[in-house]
């Protein structure tokens, strides 16, 4: 599940904002300069760029960064950001009024749209498919394919194999920072050590996030599942060959419960406190002065919240991250796809898929690009750079489980997590019910 920025935290699905991201650029130049950046590939001549309607999830700082990224593009971008993108997109598409471009985090809906012939394949825009196939990692290209045809590409990727911690606190108390080579049991014994030290609880944890309540829990579970049972089992759960009620899945939930419900392990003591705490507030407690907890497990995007909330904080000394024990990487990304092959739409897609545009956002922070032409030097600090490296160098990478399944199953998965925390002894029933929600 993708996070949503603070401004959106209290807003409803009805509260959306439409932003004119770039001023209309007057087009008076009539000579046939084929090198002009605003030319649409394939049309051979000068094309007057019009407007493109984009539906995404970005708001606040992210929206500002997005605007900065599309500024140099020639046309006008009408951006609508909503946290409730699944229902918004469904409403628009079923109502016969889709946006030109959508950029949600969930791929389940994308695959369905593609299969039903609602989407335009990227091959319809000249040069775009080749750009993606040449410059994007194989694992991400495959995720954009439906029945062998490429329909979408990924930008703004986030690793979710990241535990953020307070380095000062770890140094002071001489605790060993776990890493990818540690095991899950090491993580449990570290938690015990920190708890028994009597300083702070080892973990801070919050599940609340409006329509996405429960997503930090699903991230825990998918990360444990991939590490403990491997990529094949993970893929089987996504496709439905294995159910949520399988032994491997149950084991991952129980391991998550060991931490979340461990005696004295979590600052937010008890299920209702964890369920009622917003995930951002949970992140902040670890880096406050004095810190209230030692570690928080959250995707790489968590670094953006930390640096925004604590403006002077030093990456590496004030906050840092380590790889989730096990070493395999799950992660999410925004998938970008189009509903038409209008020259303006094509030009826009080609522009934002390119390294030049993405580098603008990379430099502003909170953005990991999977385009290999983006310079690692462009990342604003060492932590951001290591986050990018972790994602690009991962031996085993799997796309966010809940975003891969989508729809009702994703909702069931989210709700299952909060129910499990409240009633851990009903795990078998909860898992069966989640599986029953599969289409």
């Amino acid at each position, binding site marked *: 599940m993708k996070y949503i920025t603070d401004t959106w935290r*209290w*807003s*409803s*699905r*009805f*509260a959306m904002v439409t932003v004119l991201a770039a001023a209309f650029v007057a087009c008076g130049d009539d000579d046939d300069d084929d090198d002009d950046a605003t030319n649409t590939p394939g049309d051979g001549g000068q094309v007057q760029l019009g407007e493109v309607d984009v539906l995404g999830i970005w708001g606040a700082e992210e929206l500002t960064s997005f605007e900065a990224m599309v500024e140099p593009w020639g046309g006008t971008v009408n951006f609508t950001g909503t946290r409730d993108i*699944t*229902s918004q997109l*469904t*409403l628009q598409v079923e109502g016969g009024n889709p946006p030109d471009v959508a950029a949600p985090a969930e791929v389940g809906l994308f695959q*369905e749209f593609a299969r039903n012939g609602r989407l335009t394949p990227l091959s319809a825009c000249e040069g775009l498919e080749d750009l993606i196939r040449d410059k994007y990692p194989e694992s991400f290209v495959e995720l954009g394919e439906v029945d062998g045809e490429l329909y979408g590409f990924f930008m703004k990727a986030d690793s979710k194999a990241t535990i953020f911690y307070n380095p000062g606190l770890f140094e002071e108390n001489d605790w060993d920072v776990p890493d990818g080579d540690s095991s899950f049991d090491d993580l449990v014994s570290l938690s015990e050590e920190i708890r028994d030290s009597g300083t702070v609880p080892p973990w801070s944890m919050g599940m*609340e996030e*409006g*329509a996405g*309540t429960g997503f930090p829990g699903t991230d825990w579970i998918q990360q444990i599942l991939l590490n403990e049972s491997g990529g094949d089992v993970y893929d089987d759960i996504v496709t439905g060959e294995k159910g949520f009620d399988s032994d491997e899945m149950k084991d991952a939930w129980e391991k998550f419960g060991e931490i979340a419900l461990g005696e004295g392990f979590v600052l937010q003591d008890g299920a*209702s*406190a964890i*369920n*009622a*705490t917003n995930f951002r*507030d949970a992140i902040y407690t670890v880096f406050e002065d004095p810190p209230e907890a030692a570690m928080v497990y959250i995707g790489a995007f968590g670094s953006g919240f930390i640096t925004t909330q604590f403006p002077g904080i030093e990456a590496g000394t004030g906050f840092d991250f380590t790889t989730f024990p096990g070493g395999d990487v799950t992660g999410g990304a925004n998938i970008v796809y189009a509903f038409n092959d209008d020259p303006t739409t094509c030009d826009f897609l080609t522009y934002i898929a390119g390294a030049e545009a993405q580098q603008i956002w990379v430099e502003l922070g909170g953005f990991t690009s999977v385009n290999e032409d983006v310079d690692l030097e462009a990342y604003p600090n060492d932590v951001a750079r290591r986050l990018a490296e972790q994602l690009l160098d991962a031996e085993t990478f799997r796309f966010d489980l809940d975003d891969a399944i989508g*729809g*009702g199953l994703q*909702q*069931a998965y989210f*709700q*299952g997590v*909060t*129910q499990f925390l*409240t*009633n851990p002894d009903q795990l078998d029933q*909860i898992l069966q*019910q*989640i599986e*029953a*929600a599969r*289409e």
Partner: protein
Amino acid sequence: MIGRKPWVPWIWLSPSLLLLGVFLVYPVIDTVRRSFLDRRSDEWVGLDNYQFIIDNPQSLVADTHGAIFNNLLWLVLFPLIVVPLGLVLAVLTSRVKYEAVAKSAIFIPMAISFVAAAVIWRFMFVFDSDIGTMNALMVEINEDPVAWLQDQRSAQRAAFDIGPEEAWGPIQINNFALITIGVWMWTGFALVVLSAGLKSISTEILEAARVDGANEWQLFRRIILPILSPTIAVVTTTLVILALKVFDLVWVTTGGRFGTDVVATLFFKEAFVVRDFGVGAALAVVLLVAVVPIMVLSLRRFQFQEEIR
């Protein structure tokens, strides 16, 4: 002249009939049709979608029984709290000098949209007692903070200490919290309408009763209440219909999670998140069927009042 041509009135009616047809009749018929089709509205499935609502096979994601129960809870509790509260406040405020100020203060929440009110109350209900007003109060009186919007324990246990610690429902704390928001918003409406009714009672009747030796309670019970009863009925009907179609409040505060779904939120979720248009449409039909008798009742009463006039 015009009266002799029976088709003439239809010409004048046609624009509104057309609008009604396109925006009301057609959607209703189409919803009913879709409720007999499968999740993508491709194939006929008979009564399967209604069977789904009755059997409740996915009580975790789409708790149809829970949603219907919560709607009933709203239906009973919401008017039951708002009407008496509005009536008492109407009587009380009519007796003080600062009546206008008091009434405006209570009426102000009506001027806010459901969405805005829900957002305000989300802040009020925040778990962290440094942010959430309600939990700041709880801490002030030395009680543990309550996860108002997430707590599924039964309200009667929390209030009266009956039953086991972790017992759930049927009347959950968070549902009470949501109904409280509704009460906060709509008490002003009941107050203003009832207060207007109160003003229309002629002082002579009241004076006459006082002369005959009636005390204030008898005055209220035997004169004010009977005269006000049509107004009370109107207010109650309005509130009952509101309770049936409540959506925004629940959607913004909890999104229907933690057992707070009502039929309207569930049908939206089924249709546009789960993308099962069949079940979504069937739930919408259930809601429609539930509203019809109340509509009929209030129309009948309207006709009756016209006749006695």
